[in-house]
């Protein structure tokens, strides 16, 4: 499948703007690159119908390569790059959950924990859709926590790496995570309160 040239050009343009500090470019970039990745993701997902495996490798590799191959752009801002990747990973995994939910055979009890530290979330079920909503709610309250969660649980960084990327102390990340996980747990184990 040949890459869509205009889209690539647009991505290049956005990457340049993003590099120059344009925050909005990141959002546009995510939606643009997502279009591309979605097609790739569907391809991967088709190949593993109802399997327990999640081929995150392929997806994230594609993402990085797509971005890294955009010529003339030096991805110098690691932090932006990785937080962006983590966000895309989240979108892809949520979609994956949506897909596998539709394809799951009745009676199949196999559960895939999102992460050993968030083992109460089944990455192949509706839990993920609820998690997505909860993350959006948390983002409205405190954006940074969501970035931390994404880096940690969607991209798979360690606490140490997350701290490095966000340029804060390891202790801060530990605390952020404890609070954010609790917040999510509470939100997901209770019916959503009317307020916000």
């Amino acid at each position, binding site marked *: 499948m040949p890459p869509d040239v205009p889209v690539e050009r647009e991505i290049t343009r956005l990457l340049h703007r993003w590099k120059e500090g344009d925050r909005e470019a990141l959002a546009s970039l995510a939606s643009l690159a997502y279009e591309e990745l979605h097609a790739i993701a569907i391809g991967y997902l088709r190949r593993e119908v109802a399997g327990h495996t999640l081929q995150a*490798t*392929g997806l*994230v590799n594609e993402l990085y*390569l797509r971005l890294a191959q955009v010529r003339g752009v030096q991805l110098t801002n690691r932090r932006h790059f990785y937080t962006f990747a983590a966000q895309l990973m989240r979108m892809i995994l949520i979609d994956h959950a949506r897909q596998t939910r539709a394809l799951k055979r009745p009676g199949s009890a196999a559960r*895939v924990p999102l992460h050993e530290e968030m083992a109460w979330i089944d990455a192949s079920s509706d839990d993920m859709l609820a998690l997505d909503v909860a993350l959006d709610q948390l983002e409205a309250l405190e954006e940074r926590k969501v970035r931390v969660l994404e880096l940690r649980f969607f991209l798979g960084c360690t606490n140490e790496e997350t701290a490095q990327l966000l340029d804060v102390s390891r202790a801060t990340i530990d605390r952020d995570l*404890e609070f954010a996980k609790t917040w999510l747990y509470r939100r997901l184990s209770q019916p959503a309160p009317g307020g916000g």
Partner: protein
Amino acid sequence: MARIDEVEAVFHEARSLPPGDDRQLWLESRCQGDPSLLEEVASMLESNAEMRNAAAIPPIPPPAVPAAKFGAYRAVELLGRGGTSTVYRAERADGQFEQSVALKIMAAHLGGPEFLRRFEIERQLLATLNHNNITRLLDGGVSSAGDPYLITEYVEGEPLDRYADSRKLEVDARIGLFLQVLEAVDYAHRNLIVHRDLKPANILVNSEGTVKLLDFGTASLLAQQSDITLTRVRMLTPRYASPEQLKGERLNIATDIYSLGVVLYELLCGGWPFGDPNSVLSELNRVTGNVAPTPPATVLTEEAAKSRSVAFQHLRGLLNGDLSTILLKMLENEPARRYGSVRQVADDLERYREGRPILARPQTAWYAARKFVTRNWLAVSAASAAVLVLAGLTIFSLHEAAQAREQAARAQRVSEFAKNTFLSASSTWTSPLRGQSHAIQFNDILDNAAERVPRELANDPAAEADLLGTLGTTYAILGNPVKGEALIRQGLDVLRRSGAASSRKAGDLELGLCNACSFQGHYTQALAACREAMALAKVYGADLSLGSVINNTAFMAVKSGAPLDEAEKLFREASAHGPTDASQAKLFPALNNTRIGGLRLKQGDLTEGERLLREAERILRAEPGPPIEILPTLDSLAVGARIRGDYAEAMRWLEDALDLLNQRPTAYMGSSGTLEIELAANEALAGKPQALARFEKVSEQVRADSTAPTEQLRFHLLSGIVEANAGSQGAAEKHFRTALETSEKQLPRQPAERVEIYLRLAKLLGVSHREQAASDTALEGLRCAEASYGAFFAKHPFVVELRSIAHAH
């Protein structure tokens, strides 16, 4: 509603206290007057406790041993389970034999017609593998339940890494085991099967110390499917996967070489070459490319040394030099820069074990050399190594390649000597071999040596001259021919002062001088040095064979603009002497015929020229490969066809040559630019529309690479042909006139080169209705042809054309 940051602050404070009534009291007093804050924090603390107690998702229970029969076999016990397959120990269902086999059942969901079709093909392919180090495929098929399965030999053994560590094997023994692995993979490659998932877990060693490779071919059956059940969502970059695998590109044997590189690296060093294997960042960095592996000697630990039964310092020493070079070559990001075959890896490891020089060159020198090469049409390679550069391809370039190869081999030998005798104390010497240094450091070492040689070897003029010569040659090859020339001249001075101006050594130095001069484009000086070397070699012998020395002289004669028949005479003389090196003896006549044939063509003798070239082609084609040395032969055959006006034939030769070049990126770095331009010119002459695009793709590079007048001339002639046929008459005329000027000023004694330029220019002028100028130009061309073609003048195609243009007006 309480603000979230307030809630969080109190939440953390409260969590630092043990849960219980005291904490509740503390909390109430902390939130006094703010009931919503109290409620929020209390609820969060409660959730936190619940979350910590929340049962993790239960692991997937092990599957029951299936009762069904798989062919003649029945599963007995579970051995292992992956995301895409489950492996059991199995036995004959009829109880006829007790022997155990391994039964691998593919996950049911993989089924489907496409998978089954590939499964069948691969199964047949795998059944052809019959090697002592590869687990044999015994049977396979689809069970009654619809699950595809394979039955293989059952191996009781330990994974390679565990086997080596548990026995505290030394480095040499580890290499020995690894050579068995290489033998098996090489065998599979020769049977066109790529493993694609080489890792220690797939390499078992049995109690007799015999290596058995598992899962051959199943990796390709499973395509991109990772063999790991994902228990948590995270990026799983396979630890042994190559960059191209990570990119999802087409895989080939280079992929296996890379994975083997990672396996060997870990086997020898005990660490992963890319930092912490559990860090997603180091993995991602690797995916994005540009990440060089950590030099082996720097990842070693005391523990690694202990499990290799050596002292830490000793292990570091072992992994500093050649082993580091071998590992890093296997782990090159670009497949083309890795070893060309598993056999080559094994050869180098064997050379290392026997203490012979390895063929891979240290990267530092390579990088330094490459820079120079892109400027200078020089082939650089270590002792008869594979890295050969054809930046611009003419019949001359291969000579330079061979020359450089011989020089480099020699340079390596003597610098080895230098290192051992007086550089070993220098700490700077070791750094480049650790792989972390760059060309600069290599040059530092040379500088250091260049200063020390005269000082420390003042009372041994022979050794001093030898080392000065070697250093000079090394400088010249590594991109500083000016300094190289100065050092070699210094060496010659030393010989002169010690009364050895006329000696074998002096001849060798003259030859080095010849190269240093030609690298600078000083062909006249180069020729003078070469003639000197030739004269001395005839009396005293030389490091190179006399044939090679005469060959060298012949090339310099052509390049410096000597009459072509003089050069041809030298080539014929070289032919008569032949090489002393037996390995070259086989190809030597073919290569010489190529050179002589090329010169015959230029001098108008199409019949003899093409006969010699076809003869050379026949010999070279009969060799396995065929050897890449065939490229100049094909190039010259194309020129012959072009002179005859058979552009379609010329295009076939060139396309063939380009194909060969593309298949062998490992052997030939550098551009195929000149071939492309020759092809574009023929396409233009044949009226093919793609000519201009092809030309434009490479012309800048070729222009930049064309340093010698002979090459500049060819570039402008061919450029002019393409431009003329694309309708850019102005540009075409400019190219032709530049070509003429280059030829007249720099190669006045080679009028043969001008015949075609005049012809093409005359045709162009005719098309632009400048009849008189066309006619005059054609007459000039005829004059050059008359001076060059001798007996072949009358019937030469160019002459026929020139005449018709001259007479038309």
